[in-house]
């Protein structure tokens, strides 16, 4: 049933209102909302009997048990009290708002968000799980954000909404952490269980942290100093919202939380040293500032802050008496402040202004509303026969027990101020001469739909003021539930035994009245601008400055880090790597070198010149790196030396691959470079020094690591490849068997990389406007070449193709294979293109802007994949090879391996990818010619 109380507004309420808002109009939407709220109230009250008898109703379902976040609800007297308040005042606000909202205000948005808020607020008070409470807590912040920003086209609404969200949202984030910690300390997140062993938790070393975090959440939410500033700015919301969220319910959530956890915190010195002074400061500051506010709602907002501070002070006392007063005042404040906000809304609605300097003399136009407002204001001022008087008296009594004499003094000052601003509220609005210039010069009483809720609330203020004992059983039960202990017998009566508190009351009444009269002399108060007085020291400005400072700092950090310099990023990569390698890895002191054969003179004779050649090329690169063509050539030399080294170290396959790759890539680089400037831009000397330092460090480190690698005695799995290549893989060339069989899957991946690289470059070129741009430059490399070369290639092409076939076929047993064969074919075709001109060559092979080669690439990968997948037919894993050596008549033994088919896929991909990469060049040439022709 408790679940239903929350779920009804949460799902049904929001959905129904959102649906009805656009279709049925304002009244119908309000009726729906009211119906849902009434249903929820009914559901809640069915549970009231056992709770009134002192028990509690609980419901539980698992949600995220690993976090301790579960759907645990529990209603005791405290929860029931708050929930009833939320729903009852909610009903009044719903009714009131249906008359308050204008014809252009979307009702669906308003009521759906209001329902969301109502559900969230009910969730807070009914939750029996700290984390679940946090869930609803933040939901109220979000709902409040949306409601404050309801008139989003107005700048104050946007600012107020954002500010409220940030303050209460950040509070919620901190509260979440605090709630988690509190639960971890107590071993459960169930509130009723936590509260049961309060004292043990207080002794935990982490308790102060949890307390501070929970307090932070509560103080921000309940607009306590120094976080109070969001509340006045939130008054940009429609008035029903202010009445509901920002006075009667949401701002009480922080107080509710502290009441709920009272047994946990009571007696903690830290709690009292924080909560009491904060409450007191808020109480005094709010009350004093409220006098000087010219905005009707601004006055009420600061008054709300002050009353919240009063309640916080009471909770901060940490005594059961304090809890009783807090509960009583929450009840009273909800009644009179909601009534006052609604009255302010009526005045605003009827006159179009909320400025106390202009809205005067309204009693003549709004007699009924004026009467209700006067009753509520009297309650706020704490005048006898009105409900506020009682809680004030008890408040004074309680302050007298406080540890410091400043507490009752400040309490009296604040009470005097509250008398003053209550007087001002009534005097300035309803009396004090004739109205000033108003946007709506003919105010009249609004519909009874708007007045009735105010009337009801005013009546209750009077009722509980005259017959205070009516509230006794309620307050006793609620306070007992909060304190977790029986409360002393409570006697609410108009006249208490005389004592110091009566004197305080008298001083406050008289002082407040006199102060207001003095301030109002010659309308001095109207000429005073408190906002200018506070200037940039006001909380709102400090907060705005803080946020602006944070944004500026963030921007500065980001500018400093994200410079967009690619060089810096690459340098960071290397520096990070070098730092980790040198500073986190302990380097060995000595190396245990395996006994290696000493190099003979003849090997040195070959190795030394090669080494010199590499050293020379690398050194020369240092000087000529800016000259792009030379740099490519020198890199090519280094590559070729590596190829020779591979050949000398008995790796013919590697050598052949290396040579083919060097040839093809060097030619392609030349072709690409022909579109670019001949030299790279110069770099300042200092920066070059830094680059050099990083480069040297990286080079030396890699060199030293290579040495360590070479001197480390090595064992590896390579024996298996040697042993299994022929019997298992069907080939004598172990390198090729590794490529197409043992690790054929890697090769499969790599040909995909090759193919996609070509596809990417091709896709990039043919979609880009840059293509046209760069083809305006001519390149002699793309022109047809001399006849002699053409003749030579005509002869060479068949030979090269034949060589590819030969290399491919013998690959499995002798050095060679699909990759090398593909590169040879590609190199030959590249040469043909150079000789005949790229455009002609492409036309000759019908490249269709490369689509044909894109298909070739696809076909190559597909062949390899299909070969691999064929193994499935035999119930074997992907890429399992089969081989045999059938004896054929005439030909003799024929070595056959399925891996050869895979190798064919490699071959096709390599050829396709190379040719695909060349098509942009052909297109570039053609575009170039077209541009020229168009130019003529």
């Amino acid at each position: 049933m408790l679940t239903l109380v929350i779920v009804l507004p949460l799902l049904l309420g929001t959905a129904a209102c959102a649906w009805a808002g656009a279709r049925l109009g304002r009244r119908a939407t309000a009726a729906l909302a009211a119906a849902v709220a009434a249903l929820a109230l009914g559901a809640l009250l069915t549970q009231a009997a056992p709770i009134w008898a002192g028990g509690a109703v609980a419901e539980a379902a698992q949600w995220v048990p690993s976090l301790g976040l579960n759907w645990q609800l529990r209603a005791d007297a405290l929860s029931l009290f708050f929930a009833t308040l939320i729903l009852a005042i909610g009903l009044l606000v719903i009714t009131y708002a249906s008359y308050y909202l204008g014809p252009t205000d979307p009702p669906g948005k308003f009521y759906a968000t209001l329902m969301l808020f109502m559900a969230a607020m009910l969730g807070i008070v009914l939750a029996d799980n700290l984390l679940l409470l946090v869930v609803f807590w933040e939901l109220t912040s979000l709902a409040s954000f949306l409601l404050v920003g309801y008139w989003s086209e107005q700048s104050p609404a946007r600012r107020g909404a954002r500010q409220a969200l940030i303050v209460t949202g950040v509070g919620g984030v901190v509260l979440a952490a605090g709630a988690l910690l509190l639960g971890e300390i107590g071993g459960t997140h169930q509130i009723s269980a936590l509260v049961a062993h309060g004292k043990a938790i207080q002794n935990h070393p982490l308790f102060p942290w949890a307390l501070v975090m929970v307090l932070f959440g509560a103080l921000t939410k309940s607009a306590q100093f120094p976080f109070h500033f969001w509340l006045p700015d939130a008054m940009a919301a429609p008035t029903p919202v202010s009445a509901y969220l920002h006075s009667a319910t949401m701002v009480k959530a922080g107080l509710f939380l502290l009441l709920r956890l009272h047994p946990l915190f009571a007696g903690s010195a830290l709690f009292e040293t924080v909560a009491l002074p904060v409450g007191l400061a808020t109480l005094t500051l709010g009350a004093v500032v409220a006098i000087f506010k010219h905005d009707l709602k601004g006055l009420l907002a600061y008054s709300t802050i002050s009353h919240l501070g009063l309640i916080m002070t009471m909770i901060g006392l940490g005594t059961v008496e304090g809890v009783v007063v807090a509960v009583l005042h929450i009840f009273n404040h909800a009644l009179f402040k909601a009534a006052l906000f609604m009255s302010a809304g009526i005045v605003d609605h009827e006159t179009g202004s909320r400025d106390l300097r202009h809205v005067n003399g309204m009693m003549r136009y709004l007699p009924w509303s004026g009467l209700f407002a006067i009753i509520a204001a009297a309650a706020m001022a704490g005048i006898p026969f009105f409900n506020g008087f009682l809680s004030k008296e008890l408040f004074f009594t309680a302050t007298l027990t406080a540890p410091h004499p400043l507490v009752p003094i400040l309490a009296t000052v604040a009470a005097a101020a509250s008398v003053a601003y209550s007087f001002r509220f009534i005097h300035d609005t309803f009396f004090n001469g004739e109205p000033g210039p108003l946007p709506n010069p003919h105010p009249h009483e609004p519909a009874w739909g708007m007045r009735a809720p105010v009337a009801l609330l005013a009546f209750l203020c009077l009722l509980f003021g005259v017959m205070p004992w009516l509230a006794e059983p309620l307050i006793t039960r609620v306070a007992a539930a909060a304190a977790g202990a029986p409360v002393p017998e409570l006697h609410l009566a108009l006249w208490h035994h005389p004592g110091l508190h009566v004197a305080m009351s008298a001083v406050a009444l008289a002082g407040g009245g006199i102060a207001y009269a003095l301030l109002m002399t010659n309308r001095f108060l109207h000429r005073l601008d408190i906002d200018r007085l506070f200037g940039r020291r006001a909380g709102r400005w400090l907060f705005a400055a803080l946020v602006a400072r944070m944004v500026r700092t963030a921007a500065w950090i980001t500018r400093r880090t994200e410079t967009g310099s690619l060089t810096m990023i690459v340098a960071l990569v290397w520096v990070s790597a070098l730092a980790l390698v040198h500073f986190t890895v302990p380097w060995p002191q000595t190396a245990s070198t395996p006994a290696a054969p000493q190099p003979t003179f003849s090997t040195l004779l070959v190795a030394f010149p090669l080494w010199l050649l590499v050293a020379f090329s690398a050194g020369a690169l240092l000087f000529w790196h800016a000259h792009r063509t030379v740099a490519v050539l020198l890199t090519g030399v280094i590559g070729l030396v590596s190829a020779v080294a591979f050949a000398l170290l008995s790796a013919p396959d590697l050598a052949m691959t290396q040579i083919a790759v060097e040839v093809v890539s060097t030619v392609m680089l030349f072709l690409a470079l022909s579109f670019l400037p001949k030299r790279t831009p110069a770099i300042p000397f200092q920066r070059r020094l830094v680059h050099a330092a990083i480069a040297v460090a990286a080079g030396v480190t890699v060199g030293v690591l290579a040495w360590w690698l070479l001197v480390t005695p090595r064992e590896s799995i390579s024996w298996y490849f040697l042993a299994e290549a022929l019997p298992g893989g069907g080939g004598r060339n172990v390198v090729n068997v590794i490529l197409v069989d043992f690790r054929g899957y890697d090769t499969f991946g790599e040909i995909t990389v090759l193919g996609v690289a070509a596809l990417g470059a091709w896709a990039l070129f043919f979609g880009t406007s840059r293509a046209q741009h760069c083809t305006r430059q001519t390149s002699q490399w793309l022109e047809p070449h001399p006849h002699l070369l053409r003749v030579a290639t005509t002869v060479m092409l068949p030979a090269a193709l034949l060589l590819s076939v030969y290399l491919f076929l013998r690959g499995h047993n002798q050095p060679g294979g699909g990759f090398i064969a593909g590169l040879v074919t590609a190199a030959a075709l590249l040469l043909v293109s150079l000789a005949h001109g790229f455009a002609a060559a492409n036309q000759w092979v019908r490249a269709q802007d490369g689509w044909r080669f894109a298909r070739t690439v696809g076909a190559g990968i597909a062949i390899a994949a299909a070969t691999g997948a064929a193994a499935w037919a035999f119930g074997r894993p992907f890429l399992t090879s089969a081989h045999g050596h059938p004896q054929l008549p005439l030909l003799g033994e024929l070595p056959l391996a399925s891996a050869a088919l895979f190798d064919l896929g490699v071959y096709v991909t390599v050829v396709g990818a190379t040719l695909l990469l060349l098509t942009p060049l052909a297109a570039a040439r053609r575009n170039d010619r077209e541009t020229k022709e168009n130019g003529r």
Partner: protein
Amino acid sequence: MSDAATALFTHLPILLIVWPLGWGVLLLLGAARSSDHPPGSDHPETSLRRERWLSLSGAAITLLGASLLSWDAAHGAIRVYTLGDWPAPFGIALVSDRLSALFLLLTALVASSALVFAIGSWDHRGRAFHPLFHIQWAGLNGAFLTGDIFNLFVFFEVLLIASYALLTHGLGAARLRVAFGYVVVNLTASALFLLGLALLYGAYGSLNLADLAHRTAALEPQPLFLARVAAALLLVVFALKAAAAPLYLWLPAAYSAASPPVAALFAVMTKVGIYAIIRVHWAVWGGEWGVLGSAAFGLLLPTAIVTGLLGVAGALAARTLSRQIAFLTVASVGTSLIGVALATPKGIAAALFYLVQSTVTVALLFLVVALIAAQRGEIGDAIQPAPALRDPVALGLVMLLAAASAIGIPPLPGFLGKLYLLEASLDHPGQSAVWLTLIAVGALTLIALARAGVTIFWHTHPKRITVWPSGDSRVLMQPVVALVVVVAAMTLWAEPLYRFTYAAAVQAADQTAYARVVLEQAHGYAPWTRPYDGTLPQTEPREAP
């Protein structure tokens, strides 16, 4: 289980790689076929529609496969798939466990949504989008499934090469410029990766992950040194892929310049780096004080914290929504890495939970920001006042939901993930730093997104503008709704998700069980590594497969 089903589950790991790859190739062949005629003569609309349907059906099957694999992995079995039927550690083995399955499913969800979004209006703004998209997907799946570190490198290359091409999709000068940087940075990382692999092979003589885990404790000092250097290098490489500070600087420009569906897919890309750190550095090498005793891992916590803070600073400073989301990606990486750095099963589980939800959230944000930008005409996603959106309620609600999850507002999964992280860091020496960071990152994200959201949705001019076509399609809303449903599901079923991530972490940490399953077939060959003396070893002949 019937024979067919058994066969399906046996081959499922490789199918999840070969299927998207093969589908990509088929799409490429189809695209090439349909453009045989010069443009204009054929019906480009028809062929485009056909390509889209093909692409979608392929994606649906990959998604189905990933779901099946996750369902299978949830039972706790580790599946080993030996490619070419060569026993690990000699051949390459795919290993699917809960950790892999989690990432596969995440990738599938995000990729499918991004694909549908691309079909809404983006795919025809360049060549070969669909083939490249599926190939990238295959690369991601391959990286998550492999049990061999060299093969991990290969699939890093596959997914990166496809991502280079996808990054430039849709073109524009900004994309070309950032793509160049992206390629250079990633190639640098690849070079370091290769260097690390060479050192690893020198140290272990083997590249199988299970074998590495299994043999580290017995390494001699010199190979141990090489392995530690390799671990340090690989940590740099993975941190760069994950975009951890200070190596995240390539990301904001690249992600904010990418076309929205590509950026959404890229939300998964940084997770490959995190996955690799979890798999290799944590599971195989046991974290900071694990078997390898690598101190480099100890830097992960400060790095993660700095990453989170720098990311959120960027988000606070950003002037466009897409840059803000890109920086929030960085912040989410930092947050996830905090959990990884804790190096306990609880920490990893929390990190995985956070990572999964943040990936979905970031992808959702990229998509919804694209819609917002398209409805604001020339102003696009700049955080400044503009004419009102055409569709403020739907987009606003989605944005609110995604932003709330990114901030960590309850009850959304971002909040739950942060709670898990906070809880996991209790009793860790860095607890207070972790708590402060998470609170600060949450608060600053709130400020950043509140500022942006209020400006974009509420600070409007009355002027009317024309909506760009990419903001005006019902198709575009479908993936957004789908991802919203995923976020909602992760909220409601947070408990099963966390149980899965926790089980994944525990399973990944149990390297004995992992090695036993993976290396099962190779027991007859012990010792697996033998000295190389240049002679052909004699073994008992085995039967041909």
